[in-house]
């Protein structure tokens, strides 16, 4: 038993000698703080017509390393404005998943919720845009787009079950627009938004 104790003592000591092999800073934290600094500024004006929102993360079926990092990665989202500005946003953990509300400089409010339930992942993005514009929601390669009319509220939901993505769009009247997997890559838009986009 003493031999075993000595051996475990040596093992533990071996780990204690392991120095951190990585960098002395985090690119992710740096990007987060940069975004915090930008959002606290008042002079930045965003002339947005297109915003892409990307949820990062890979789940299931892939390499073990990808699955391990998924939980962390899935709590991040990136908003990219048409002028190239990137907002790397951190979603707050909740019992159901992760979520957060983000306001870009032009006043567009994004409410993001990511929910995981077993093999199913779902991301819902509520968009409240004072000026209107085009948004693309990207998750696991699925990228439904939605045109939002000025002042219109919209909700886009992207689900993934066992690697198959589908999307639905709920307009501000609560009417659901179902789209099949084949339409996920295409356009989804309300009639109001279509009228506004014809300008």
């Amino acid at each position, binding site marked *: 038993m003493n031999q075993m104790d000595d051996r475990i003592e040596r093992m533990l000591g071996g780990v204690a000698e392991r120095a951190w092999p*990585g960098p002395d800073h985090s690119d992710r*934290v740096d990007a987060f703080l940069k975004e915090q600094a930008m959002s606290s500024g008042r002079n930045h004006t965003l002339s947005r017509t297109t915003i892409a929102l990307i949820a990062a993360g890979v789940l299931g079926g892939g390499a073990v390393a990808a699955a391990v990092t998924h939980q962390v990665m899935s709590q991040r989202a990136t908003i990219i404005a048409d002028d190239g500005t990137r907002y790397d946003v951190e979603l707050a953990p909740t019992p159901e998943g992760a979520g957060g509300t983000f306001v870009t400089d032009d006043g567009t409010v994004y409410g993001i919720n990511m929910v995981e339930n077993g093999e199913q992942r779902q991301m819902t993005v509520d968009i409240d845009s004072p000026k209107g514009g085009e948004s693309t929601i990207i998750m696991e390669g699925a990228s439904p787009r939605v045109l939002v009319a000025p002042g219109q509220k919209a909700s886009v939901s992207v689900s993934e079950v066992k690697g198959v993505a589908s999307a639905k769009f709920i307009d501000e009247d609560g009417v659901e627009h179902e789209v099949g997997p084949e339409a996920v890559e295409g356009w989804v838009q309300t009639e109001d938004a279509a009228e506004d986009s014809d300008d």
Partner: protein
Amino acid sequence: MGDALLAIPVVEARGTASAEPGERALIDQARTDPGAYSRLYRRHYRTVAGYLYRRIGDEHAAEDLASETFIAAWQALPRYRHTGAPFSAWLLRIATNKANAWARSNRRRGATLPPPTMDDAEAPAAREELDLLYLALRALSPDHQSVIALVHFESMSMAHAAAVLGVREGTVKSRLSRARDALRVEVERLGGGS
């Protein structure tokens, strides 16, 4: 929890130095200034990342969790109170919570964790020992993993580990004893008894 933090002595261990002169002012500035927080987090990054690396064994996961820790710390900083304890103790508590959640979630999902990150120069026998240790360690409860990591890997005193964990010193001692017993059982179960 607050009482435990007040009782913390300054000890010689990784990441346990008391606040550097001016750090208190920097912490206060960092509550509202991302630039100041950037300087603060870089000062402590290696301590936190190193702790997570030794605790969970995998470099990439440790890097992710370290980022999570500092982002969570930024969000919680307005509620941070100066207690006389090193700022790093507060960061390590957040990091410990992140590592515990990571361990619990992996266990719930039955995830197969990658083997510990190895140094190329590491001898094969040392690699085997390291592999065995992390296999055994990961089978323990997150609380047991934490106390072993803080006391054995970070060379913390019982008092400092108590401050990080937010428990009494006596609890650390008893928990460490049970954790070591559990670790020995796991090492033997995994074939390390020969």
